[in-house]
């Protein structure tokens, strides 16, 4: 096992042991925090597929996060309010079933990512960062003024959606569910990294000309990566909305995009478990520093600066001491 492999295994063990201890000790809130970690990590794993593997610096991933959230919000809201979502061509009353919501969130985010990717991938570098930001802002302002679904007030869902065989209202069971989703997606991402597609994408990031020379189209590779990335982040959005039992335009904001990106960079770009480590550290800092001082943003800022300036390859890089394997 490589050093990075050991770190990854430790991270997973942590994610099992800490909530397990919290459950035993009756520290319910720690479980809620851990759930937040896992879901944010999932969103960042999604971004990492575009960012780390494809080199696509998207500052608009809140679009997919928010879409996932609103998919959950809208589907569940119609059940809650007894107002069918649509009556034609057939009667559809919305749903409170997580698997159905997840499917809808993934499909919707993937389709949106396809359209946005088709338009944005014509640009590159800083222009790509900014055009994805522009799409994020469009969704943000649209959701603020879309009064049918609460506008800026957002949508409150009173009871968490259901999953067959589980009581999702029980924090530890909901945590377990989110954790399983994260593990499955991590496994999928690691397979993706090593697949022919992943290798080609990696090559396209480093030298597009060479990939083109062997008859592959970098544009198609990047578009596919962007769609997969958007779909995963969308799934995370649906879970996040269920954790809070609430969605609002804040999920579409550029600060949200920035926060997801920070998780990736903090942990280590292009590393499979980078986003997970980033999410653990970020949520922990938010929690600990917030208790220290009203001005805790200063300390958070200083810490982030230290990481960027003095730690190569993010936190995982600091521990393993090597650049990411495929760099």
């Amino acid at each position, binding site marked *: 096992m490589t050093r990075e492999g050991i770190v990854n295994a430790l991270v997973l063990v942590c994610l099992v042991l800490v909530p397990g201890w919290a459950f035993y000790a009756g520290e319910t809130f720690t479980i809620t925090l851990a759930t937040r970690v896992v879901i944010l990590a999932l969103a960042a794993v999604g971004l990492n597929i575009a*960012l780390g593997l494809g080199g696509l*610096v998207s*500052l608009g991933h809140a679009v997919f996060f928010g879409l996932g959230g609103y998919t959950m919000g809208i589907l569940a809201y119609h059940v809650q309010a007894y107002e069918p979502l649509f009556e034609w061509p057939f009667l559809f009353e919305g749903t409170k079933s997580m698997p159905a919501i997840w499917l809808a969130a993934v499909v919707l985010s993937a389709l949106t990512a396809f359209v946005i990717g088709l*338009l*944005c991938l*014509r*640009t*590159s*570098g*800083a*222009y790509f*960062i*900014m*055009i994805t*930001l*522009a*799409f994020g*802002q*469009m969704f943000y*302002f*649209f959701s*603020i*003024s*879309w*009064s049918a679904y609460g506008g800026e007030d957002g949508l409150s869902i009173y009871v968490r959606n259901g999953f067959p065989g589980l009581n999702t209202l029980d924090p530890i069971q909901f945590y377990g569910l989110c954790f399983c989703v994260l593990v499955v997606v991590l496994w999928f991402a690691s397979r993706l990294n090593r697949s022919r597609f992943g290798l080609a994408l990696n090559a396209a990031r480093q030298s597009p000309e060479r990939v083109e020379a062997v008859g592959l189209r970098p544009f198609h590779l990047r578009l596919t990566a962007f769609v997969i990335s958007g779909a995963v982040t969308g799934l995370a959005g649906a879970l996040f909305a269920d954790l809070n039992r609430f969605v609002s335009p804040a999920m579409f904001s*550029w600060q949200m995009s*920035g926060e997801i*990106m*920070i998780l990736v*960079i*903090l942990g280590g*770009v292009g590393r499979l478990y980078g986003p997970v480590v980033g999410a653990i550290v970020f949520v922990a800092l938010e929690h600990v520093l917030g208790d220290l001082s009203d*001005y*805790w*943003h*200063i300390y*958070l*800022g*200083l*810490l*982030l*600066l230290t*990481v*960027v*300036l003095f730690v190569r390859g993010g936190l995982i890089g600091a521990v393993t001491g090597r650049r990411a394997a495929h760099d």
Partner: protein
Amino acid sequence: MSLVLIAEQVLNGLQFGIMLFLMAAGLTLIFGVMGLINLAHGSLYMVGAFCAAAVAGATGSFLLGLVAALAGAALAGALVEIVVIRRLYAKDHLDQVLATFALILIFSEGTRWLFGSFPLYLNVPEYLSGPVTLPGGIEYPVYRLTLIVIGLVVALGLFLLIGKTRIGVQIRAGENDREMIAALGIDIGRLYTIVFALGAALAGLAGALVGAIQSVQVGMGEPVLILAFVVIVIGGIGSIKGTLIGALLVGLTQTLGGIFLPELMKIFMAPSAATSVGASLASMAIYVLMAAVLIVRPTGLFGARA
């Protein structure tokens, strides 16, 4: 809608665009010369406004306030460049985004720590307040006319600085080939600090000028920052000419969109629904404009390189 009203709105769009130009010019210079994405540019705008408010409040002189804004923002810019930013040039965009985001946090909460959570007072000086009647019967605030003039003067100054002076030659050389100027024996470190301080001073000036008719408060820089990014991307990164045109386009789209889109919607729907839908479309308008420009021209209107 009368012709006078339309003319007044065009003036408003111009004025807004010119203020955006002040903000965006520094951003595009820093981006073009050093290849740095500086999210903390909005914080320098805020620093300028707070310096102006503090000094104008203490001395009662708006002009001294402006001087303080220029000096304070330039100083803050130079300091940040020396302590943090120069370590970021060699890093990729990602690290720059994270580091400058961290700087936003530090600047915002630091300012709140120094000045408190309440908005500060900064107002238009007596001699520039009130409206003036323009040819055609337009009543227009003197201060906004002054803003247009100051903005145009600064734009002209920038063109001259870059086109005619020694430092301008160095900046242009830096944009084209970074290794080259080092080979020419120019002190790159000094050049970068100067460019960064210059950009910061422009942002600080914009913050102080706009702060007099808006609200001087923590977090005032971030909405403007996003708009400034839209501007430089539309214009093409690194191009001062592109930035000026981009700023005017964004200013006009934002202002005129806000007025005409609701009117346009009234043709299709009930008035109260139309104002709401029109307002939603208007708030999305500049981002649609930006996406459209980039889809047609992936490096902006005047951008040279990808």
